[in-house]
C-alpha cells in the first residue's frame, strides 16, 4: 500500500490580456487511486493586481492519496479565467500538468479551436505552480518504479 501526499500551491498567473484572473483547478487520477483527505478540485479567488502583472492566488493544494497500483498518477488541470467588471467570466487558457507534474500543453481539438487553445496554452505557461509529493511506505518491490516517477 502506498500513500501519496500532494502539497503545493497555485501561485499566480501572468501574461494574459487582462489582469483580473482566477483559476479553476482539479486533480485527476486513475482508478487505482483513492482520495483519503483533501479537496481534489477547487477554484481560487479573483485577484486583480493593482501593482505588477502577476495575479497572485497562492492557493493551497493539500491532498492525501492512497493507491493500489502505479498507473494513473495524479494529473492537475488548470483553467485560467478572467472576470470582467460586469462579473462575467471568460476562459483564457487551460493546461495540464502531467503525471510527473512536468508541464505539458493541452489541446487536441478541431482546427478552429486549437488556435485559441494554442494562445491559451502559451499564456498558461506563465501560470506558476509548485508542488511536492511525499510518498509513504511504498512496498519494497515497487520502490524503484516510484522513484522514477518522482525524481523528475
Amino acid at each position: 500500500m502506498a500513500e501519496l501526499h500532494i502539497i503545493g500551491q497555485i501561485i499566480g498567473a501572468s501574461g494574459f490580456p487582462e489582469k483580473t484572473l482566477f483559476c479553476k483547478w482539479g486533480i485527476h487520477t486513475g482508478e487505482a487511486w483513492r482520495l483519503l483527505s483533501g479537496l481534489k478540485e477547487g477554484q481560487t479567488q479573483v485577484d486583480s493586481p493593482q501593482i505588477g502583472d502577476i495575479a497572485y492566488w497562492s492557493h493551497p493544494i493539500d491532498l492525501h492519496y492512497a493507491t493500489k497500483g502505479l498507473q494513473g498518477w495524479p494529473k492537475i488541470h488548470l483553467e485560467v479565467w478572467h472576470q470582467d467588471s460586469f462579473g462575467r467570466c471568460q476562459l483564457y487558457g487551460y493546461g495540464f500538468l502531467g503525471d510527473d507534474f512536468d508541464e505539458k500543453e493541452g489541446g487536441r481539438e478541431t482546427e478552429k479551436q486549437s488556435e485559441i487553445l494554442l494562445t491559451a496554452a502559451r499564456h498558461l505557461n506563465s501560470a506558476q505552480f509548485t508542488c511536492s509529493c511525499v510518498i509513504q511506505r511504498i512496498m519494497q518491490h515497487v520502490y524503484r518504479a516510484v522513484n522514477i516517477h518522482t525524481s523528475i
Partner: protein
Amino acid sequence: MYLFYSLQIQVGKGLPTAEEAFNFFTLNFDPDPPDVIETSSRRRQKQRKTTDEDEEHEDVDEDIQEENETQSEEAPLVQTQEDLFVIDQSPQDFLEIRKAEYVGYQKLLQLQSELLFTPSFRTVPTSIKLPENMKPRYLEDEGLYVGERPPVSLTNENILENRILKMEEKWFGDDGRIIALPNPIKESSTRPPLFHMEEALDPALQTVYRKAVKSKYANLYIAGAADPEGDYQLDVDVSGLIFSHHPLFSREHILGARLAQLYDQYLTRQRNNLTGHLTDKLNGLRNALRNMLESHSGLNPTQCFSKYYRSTRHLRDSEQEKDRTLLKNIVKVWKEIKALREFQKFTNTPYKLYLRRENVDRVSDEQDYEDEILAEVVELEAETEEEYQNKLAEYKKRLEEWKLCRKKQDVSESEGPTDEPPPKPEPPERPDLGSIEQWVREKALRIRRKPGEAILIPELSASANITASELCPRAEKARREDVARRSLFTKILYNDKEVSRTDSRSLNTDFRVHFGQIFNLKIVNCPQSISLQVFEEIGSSCSLLAQVFLPVPEPSVVTGSVPLEEFEFSSNQRVMFDHEGVGSDVPLSFEADGSNKQSLLTSGKVSCCVSWGIGDDDVPLAPPISQQPGGVHSGKGHLDAVSYIGASGLYDMKKIGEWAKQSRLDPNDPKNASIMQLLKVASSGEVTAPEYFRLEHLQEEFNFVTDEELEKSGRFRLLKLRNQEVAEFRNYKFIPALEREVTDTVFQEYEKRLKEGEVIDTKEHLDSHRALVAKYLQKIRESVINRFLLAKHHYLLSDLVTEEEIPTIGILGINLFKLAEPKRPLKPQRKERKKVTAQNLSDGDIKLLVNIIRAYDIPVRRLQSKHLIVPFRAALGFPTRYSTKSNLILLYTSSRVRPFVEVSFQRTVLQTATADGPNPCWNEELQLPFSAPNGDYSTASLQSVKDEVFINIFDEVVHETNDKNRGKSIQTHIEKRWLGSVKIPFSTIYSQSKIEGTFKVNTPAVLLGYSKEKSHFTNSGFDILRSLSEGTFITLFITVDPQLVPGESVREKFDTQEDERLLQASERFERDAAQRYPDRPCITTVIDLSGKTVFITRYIRPLSPPKELLDEFPNNPLEATPLVARFVSLIPSLPDQVSLSATCDLWSTCDQFLTLLAGDEEEHAVLLCNYFLSLGKKAWLIIGTAIPEGPTAYVLTLEQNLYLIWNPSSGQFYGQYDTFCPLQAVGCLVNADNVWFNIQQYTSPMRVSFDITKANLWKPFFSRTFSHPGLSSIQPEELVYRRTDRAAAAELQDRIERILKEKIMEWRPRQPTRWNRYCTTTLKQFLPKLELIRGQDVAEGHRHELQSLLGDYRISGFPLNLVFSEIRPIIEAVYSTGIHSVQASNVEFALAVYVHPYPNNVMSVWIYLASLVLT
C-alpha cells in the same frame, strides 16, 4: 570478581599484557582469592547450622535444611533474619561465587541430539517418498514437458527430503522428487559484463550523455523519436517494370505476352506438381482402403474414408484436366503466333516455342492406363451400387409411409377430403453399369495423355530474330518509331506526397523498362501509404499511366533480406493509333471473321521492394512496433504472447505460425502457453480485438494490493472518516502512521451508531411516542448539522486574513491621556479581558470560575419537638407577605441552618465552606476545570457542550450519637440535606461569557423538617424589595477563564417564501437596531424547522388551550391562566443550540412543538402567547435577555393596567416591578401585527414603559410608510389535542418508581436500603394534592399529619416536580439531591412517584423523597 578470575587465568598462562598490568595496579577490586571465599562461605554455613540448632528455631522447616544439605551451592546464604544484621560481615557474604558451568562437547552434542532433529544426508529411497503401492512415474519419459530443475547439491537435497519426510507433508511429485519450479535463471546474462573496472570501457558500452529533448513532433509523428539523428529510413527499391499490355503493342506482341503468361503458368504448375502429388495420394488411399476392406468386412467405418478418397480423385481429375488444357492452349497460341508471322511477313517478338518429346514404353503405358481405368470403373460401380441401395432403402421407407397415409385416408374418406394424398414415391432407376465404363473412358481421353503418346514438354525461348525496321511495312515502322519516342519514369509518393522520382528511361521494343534505383527515405511521419506513379513521356509532355500502391513493410523487414516483389498495375485509359499499335481499351479480334472481340487495357508489373533501412550498427531504422498503425489494438493477450518469447515484430499470423513450426516450440512448455493459444486462435481465423476498451489494461498486473485490502485498512478508513467530518472522528488530531496501531475499537462506537440508526429502541424511553419524537429530532438534527458543516467551509476574507487595526490619532490620544490619569487603587476599574480564539486551546486551559457570593432566605430546620407546632398559612395566587410569625421559632433560626453550596460540573464537585444562618455570605470562588468533548475546542464543539453546572445548596447537620457499645465516646455524624438547586447550562455561560446576578433557587414545594422563615433582624433597605417575592435566592458570578469568543451565527442564506421587499426591510430594521443598541436583541425573521426564513409575526395567532384546562374553572377563565402557563411549562425544554450544535435558532410552529414535545424558550413563549390571546388577554412576545438563559423570549400580558411578565419555561409570572424577575433586558415586542423595537434609554423591565403606542419609545416595524402587507399566519387554525391515557400514566408511574428504587439501592452499595412502606403510602397521598395546587404552596396539615403519624422518626425529605422527557434526567435530579448518601445505620427511605397526565402526552412527574431516622 569476574575480572579477577580472568586475570588469574592469564597469569597462569604467562605474562600479563600491558593493559592487564595497568588494570591490576589501578583498578580497585577485592584481593580475596575465590577459594578463600568458598571456604569462608562454607564455614559460615556450618556456623549457621549450629546456630539454628542452638536457638531452637521451631519455625524453620526441616525440609529447608535438607535442601541446604543437598544443594549447598544454590542455597541462600542468609537464612534467618538475625544473620542479615550481623555487623561484622563483609560484602563477600552477600555474594555467591561459582565456577563457570561447562558442559563437555560430547555431552552437549548428546543433549542437542535429544532436542534437535538433524536430518540425515543419505539418499532417501524413492519408495518412502511416494505413497504406498505406487510406482514412480517419470513425466519426461512420457513425453510431457518438464522444466529444468534448479541445480541443488545432492547433499542438500537429501537433507531437505529427510526433513520433509519427518514433517510428513506432501512435497513430493509423482517421480519421487521434490516438487520444484523450473529453473528461473536465464542462461545468459541480460546485461553486458563490465569486467574492466579501472581500464577504459569497451567503446560499445561507453555511456553517452544525451540531453533530454522534448518530442518535437505532434502526436501524428512517431513518438519516442528522441534522437534527431536516428530518424527512420525507408528504402524503396524500384527495379523496373514490364508491360503485359501497352497501347503500342502490335498483335504479335499481344499473342507473345499471352504465350509468355501461359508459359509462366505452366512453369509454376510444373514446379508445384499438384497432379503428381494427388496421384500419389490417390494410390496411397486406394491401398489403404483395400487393406481396410480386407480386414474389416463392415462397411460403416470406411464410409467416411471413401468419401475422402472420392473427393481426392475429383481433385486429381480436375488438375489433370487443367494441365492438359494449359498445354493445349500453349500450343494453340504458338500456332497463332506462327500464323500471324507468316501473314504479316515480319517478326516482332523474339518468342520461340519448342516442344520436347519424351518417349515412353508403349506397352507398359497402355497397361497402366487400362489398369487405371478398370480400377476407377470398379470403384465407380461400387459407389453407384451403394448409392442405389441407399436410394432403394429410402424409397421403401417412403412407400411404407405413403401406404399408411393411404389407409388412413380410406378410413376418413367419409368425413370429406382432408389432405392431399402424398404422391406415390417413384422407385429409383437401376443404374446402368455398362455406361460407367464408357463414361470413364471418355473422361480419360479428355483429360489424359493417350496411352503410348509421347510426353510433350514446352520450352519457350527468346531466340527468334526480330525483323529489322526497314523490312517492315509502313504502319509497323510508324509503330516502332512511336515506341522509340516514348520514355517512362516513376514517381515515389510517401503519404501522398511526392518525395522522389526515378530517371526517365526510354521504352524498349520488348516493353520492359529497367530503373534499378534505390531511394532512401528519411521519415519522421508514420508511414500511411507508399505508392509509385508510372508516367509516360512523349517528347516534353508526360501523362500518368498508372498508380501502384505498395504496402508499408513490417518493422522486421529490413533492406537486404527481402526479394523484389512484383506489383501489378493497370490503367483504363483509351488509346487508339492509326498505325500497327493495337491501342488500349480498343476491341480487336484475332479471328479472321472478326468475331470473339477482346478489348485489352494497359497493364503491367512493377518490380520493386520497400524495406526499412539498416543503420551503421546493424540496427534497423524502423519505428517501434507500438507506433505501427494497425495490429496494435488487438488486446493485451496478443501483445504479451509475442513480446514474451522475444519475437517482437511478428505480426503476421502466418509468419508466426511458420516461425513456431520452424523453431519447434514445445507445446507443453508453460512459457509457450500464450503463443500456442494465440496460434490456435489464429488458425481458426478469428483474430479479433476484444470488444471492450480499457484505459489501464495492465492495471491488474501492476496492483500491489487488492481492493479489499485497501478497503480493510483501518488507517485509511480513519483518514477518510475524519475528512468527511463524521462526528466521532471530526476532531482526531493524530492518526497513527502504522496500520497496526489503529485498533478496531476506534470504530466500534461509530458502527454501533450506524446500526442503531434504524432501530427505535422503545425500552429506553418508557414511552413509545417519545421514542419516535426523539428519532425525528435526531433526523432534523443530522440534516441541519450537515447543512452547517457545508456552510462552515464557506469562508470570508475576514476568516482567513486578520488585519490588525492601525491605531488612529484618536486612540493614541486617549491612551496618552490615560497615562496622565491619577491612579486610584481603591477603585479598581474593570479591565477588558483578552479574548482567546478557540482553536489554540487544549485540555486544562479552560476553567470555569464560579463565585458564590451569598444567599437569601434559606429554609431553616424545624425543631424536632412535638409541642411546637408552627402555624403556617398558605398564600395562594399572587405573592403576599406572611402575616403571622411565631416569635418562639425566631430565637432558634439563626443557628438552625448551616448551609453550604456544592457546585458540580463535569464530574468535578467542589463545595464552599459552611456558613451559618438563613442568609449566609460565602463570597468564595470555585474553579472547575473544563474539558471539551473529544478534546475539540472549536466553536461548534463548544457550543454543543450539553453539560450543566449544578449549584446545590445543602444544610450540614451534625448528629451526635452515643454509641451504646463503647459507652463513653461520642460519635459525630455529618449529614447533608438538600435544600435547593440552580442549574445553568454551559452553553449559556459560553454564549454570555459571564453570568452575574441573583437567581431564584429551585426549592421543593415542601421541605420536610424545614420551614421557610422570615428574618426580622435584617435591616437593609434591599429587603423591602426582596420581600415582595418569596423563595430562596442566591447571588452568583460565573465566567469562563480565559474568555472564549462565542461563535458567530451561520451566514447562510436560507430559502424563503417571504417577499423580497419585506426581507430587505427587515434586514435594514435589524441592522439599524444593532447599530444604535448593540446589546438589545432584535429579531424580525426566524428560521422554521424546514430551514426557511419566516417573518416573526406569522407565528402569533390566537390558539385555544386544551379544553380540560379550561373546564377546571368554568366560571372564571382568568383562573385558568396559571394552569395554562403550567401546562406550557411542562413541555420539556430543549435548547436549540445544544441540540443543533450551532448558533442557529429554529422556530417550530405550535403544532410541531406539541408533536415534538420539545422546544426552547421561543416555542414555549409563542405557545403561551397564543393561548393568552385566545383567552382574550392582551399579550405580546418579549424578545430580550434573561438570566440564566441569555437571549430569550418571554410573554408580556396586560391585566388591569398591570403588566405581567411570564417566564414560559417555568410557568412563573412576575410583576413589572419585581426585583427578582429573571428578565434583564427588553429588546422588542412582537404580536401578530407588528414588531416594536425598544428605543428607550433603559432596557430593564422595571424602568421601561410598555406603552407601545408611543413612537418615541417603541419603534414599529410596520409604519405608515411601510404598512403591514397582511401576512398570513403559519400556525394552524386549531390545535388538536389528544387525551392522555391515564392507564399509560399509571404504568409510567410504576416504572419510574421501580427504576428509582433500584437506582437508590445501587447508589448505596455498602449499606442496606430499607423502605418505609407506611411513609411511602402517606407520601403518595400528598402528591396529587401538590399537583392540584401546582406546587405553589402546601397545606401544612398534611405535614403535621405525617409528623404525627411517624412519631419518633426524624424525617427530612422533599417532593421534586419534574417535566417528563426521559428517565435519565429524573435519575440525575434524584442523584443530585444526595438523599442516598445518608450514612446513619438506622436510616429508612420513602419514595413516592406520581405522574399527572395532561393532554397531548404532557406529563408532570412528582417524586417525593424522604429519609427517616429513628431518634
